[in-house]
């Protein structure tokens, strides 16, 4: 029977390293997606994701279960990513360039040349438009997109009210629609 997140956290707190490994395996991709959505560069995002789990390991004894584990780990991830993004100055194009390669590798291109070009442009412009948002606006749209999280959970992660989440999300979507109007 699969243990719940909280049961794994309790095992970690008792010194069970395998339990922490299990938590990392459950959340590493999601955490990486959140961070990648906030940052401009895959390598930086990978580094920050690993640092996020390292910090989580160091803090896990103080985790009381007041919120769910995923809310807690996403909060660490978002804070790390925003901090790192303010420091890093790498090329923002790294992400969508690697995306093009990835979609080709997954054979998701080549069926309709017109559609391929359109999708490529949409991805490129999506990356640019996302990068023009503030970290706070990026965070709400990424958290909502990846997990379909409720406004309440997003508010807990970002430390703001549901109303703030709602207005940030509305603003971010409006901005994205304006920037991507030629591709939607």
């Amino acid at each position, binding site marked *: 029977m699969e243990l719940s997140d909280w049961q794994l956290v309790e095992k970690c707190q008792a010194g069970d390293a395998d339990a922490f490994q299990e938590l990392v*395996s459950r959340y590493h991709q999601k955490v990486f997606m959140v961070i990648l959505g906030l940052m401009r560069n895959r390598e930086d995002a990978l580094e920050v994701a690993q640092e996020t789990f390292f910090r989580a390991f160091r803090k896990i004894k103080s985790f009381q279960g007041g919120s769910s584990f995923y809310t807690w780990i996403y909060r660490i991830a978002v804070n790390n990513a925003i901090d790192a993004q303010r420091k890093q100055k790498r090329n923002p194009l790294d992400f969508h360039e690697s995306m093009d390669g990835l979609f080709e590798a997954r054979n998701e291109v080549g069926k309709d040349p017109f559609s391929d070009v359109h999708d490529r442009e949409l991805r490129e412009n999506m990356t640019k438009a996302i990068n023009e948002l503030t970290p706070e606006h990026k965070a709400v749209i990424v958290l909502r997109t990846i997990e379909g999280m409720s406004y309440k959970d997003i508010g807990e992660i970002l430390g703001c009210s549901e109303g703030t989440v709602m207005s940030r999300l509305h603003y971010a979507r409006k901005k994205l629609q304006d920037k991507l109007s030629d591709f939607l």
Partner: protein
Amino acid sequence: MSQCETIQESIGRWLDGELPATDSEAVRSHVAGCADCGAARQRLEKIQLTLGSMLSAEASRLEFSPFWREVQRRIDEKRPWHEELIDWCRSTFSAPRLAWAVPAAIMLVLGFLSLAKWPVGGETNNYASVESIDAYGRNVALLRDDKTKTTIIWLYQNPEGENENVEETAKPGPAF
């Protein structure tokens, strides 16, 4: 604001399932019958879908084993003292703790200042006195707080014009 504008303001919340049931039904039925609002819905869904597929495509490339090895290496690694210190400061001086620390610090400062003003067990130089200022019985009550501060509390004249402290040599006439 037209009905379409009102609806389009709410489409995001409706797609997110964050509208109350009655509002949700109103938006759903309007969007079903309105081409403009239907297009607005599709645009929002396309943004969500494109961003989601971009991120999940990248995440699918992420292999667990090398990821975990790097996390484990950091856990096992002895960190330099300054990083340990930064971590300690972050956890110790976190916002919730500062929320308590700020009023506590203010109370400590106020406590220190009040002790400085009224030293515990210390000797104070405060005293009050009544002094004569001329030969016509005019007296003044003084409160001396310390060596440099003197407060005149009141000024009065003895109705009988007597003053035991008057020196014989004092000349008549107002002193001020």
